[in-house]
């Protein structure tokens, strides 16, 4: 179980062979995506693990940056050339962690020769633009706002399988195709990484019924298609009808599609 705080591999017998150091590579299929998830919160580890498993990823979840480095064999100075390369296709890490932050972990991974090509995704509960930019500049592939949803993970998965190589310079590029959403709502700003419009992904605009006084007894479907008012910051007024006119990716390039939908209240 993922409760022991160390390396945890939930319900995956193959992953039990993966050791901290000095063990052989796990017997994974070449096609299987292996994700290393790093989060100090047990609740979040369980959730991200489930999200990743649903999208057919093998998951190793650890509770700290140090454990992650240990798992990757990066925690000592000596070159570990003789070790079989662990197959890690994606590293997803929380930003705020005691000891080593996700940003510090990102830097260490990008400094390593063995794992610098592995995409690193940062998760954070805070939508701080400077934080996002700093992570992207350091080479993070994407930035997810917590709480993470299945649509976010599916998006990550889609560009993993397509083996998109995105350099820092391309991070501001907008995709040309729009994201498929509910027809009743305008399309959200597209994710910065050129993800395909995965039609099977649930609409990013899953909304919570805000407990406001204007709340009248709606049918359940109506309740859950009411817009979410942006709780976090004011720059989320990014309603556009076409991807090309999405504003200012330099400001907050990557976020979950939380936004205001004026006119639909």
């Amino acid at each position, binding site marked *: 179980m993922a409760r022991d705080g160390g390396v945890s591999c939930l319900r995956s017998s193959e992953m039990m062979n993966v050791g901290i150091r000095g063990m052989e590579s796990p017997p994974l299929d070449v096609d299987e995506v292996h994700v290393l998830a790093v989060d100090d919160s047990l*609740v979040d580890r369980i959730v991200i693990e489930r999200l990743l498993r649903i999208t057919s990823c093998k998951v190793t979840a650890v509770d700290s940056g140090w454990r992650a480095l240990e798992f990757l064999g990066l925690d000592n100075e000596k070159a570990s050339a003789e070790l079989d390369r662990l197959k890690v296709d994606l590293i997803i890490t929380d930003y705020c962690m005691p000891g080593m932050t996700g940003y510090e972990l990102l830097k260490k991974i990008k400094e390593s020769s063995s794992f610098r090509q592995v995409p690193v995704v940062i998760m954070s509960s805070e939508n701080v633009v400077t934080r996002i930019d700093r992570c992207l500049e350091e080479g993070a592939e994407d930035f997810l706002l917590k*709480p993470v949803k299945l649509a976010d993970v599916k998006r990550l998965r889609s560009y993993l399988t397509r083996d998109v190589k995105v350099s820092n310079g391309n991070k501001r590029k907008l995709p040309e195709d729009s994201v498929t959403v509910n027809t009743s709502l305008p399309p959200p700003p597209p994710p910065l990484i050129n993800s395909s419009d995965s039609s099977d992904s649930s609409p990013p605009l*899953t909304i919570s019924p805000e407990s406001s006084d204007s709340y009248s007894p709606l049918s359940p479907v109506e*309740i859950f298609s009411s817009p979410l008012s942006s709780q976090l910051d004011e720059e989320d007024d990014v309603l556009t009808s076409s991807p090309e006119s999405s504003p200012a990716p330099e400001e907050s390039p990557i976020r979950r599609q939380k936004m205001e939908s004026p006119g639909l209240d």
Partner: protein
Amino acid sequence: MDSHVAQLQMQYRNYILSLYQQGFLDDQFTELKSLQDDGSPDFVAEVLSLFFDDCVKLVGNMARALDQTGTVDFSQVGANVHQLKGSSSSVGAKRVKGLCINFKELCEAKNYEGCVRCLQQVDIEYKTLKAKLQDMFNVSVIIVHMNPVSVWDDFNKIILGKE
């Protein structure tokens, strides 16, 4: 017998809806429910159980940190609040999360009385949520017992709009 089941199911549905309407739960809870399936039938219960364990632990930490004679380490209180905010957000415990947001500000302002009051509210709030969710699960167990059709099918239909 059928009408009793139908009535219970109706009450159950209304109960769930009321939890959303009263702001106890938000769409993240819906998201968690959608991750549950026949292969992982206990997923939500497992996550919630861990969440409530977290609440006990973190509230205890905060109570101890605020119970100092002398200087209170507000950054330590704040660190625990941050963690609770995170996990409540991840399970969709909307009211708890909202309180944590206030709590964080009170910590930053080093408002001792405010922190103590807020902690009491957090304590009440998570326990209230726990009781309500327990009621919900209890009713669902009764319904499942009376009616072989899975009660989560109903939930999925209502809450997720699936047919």
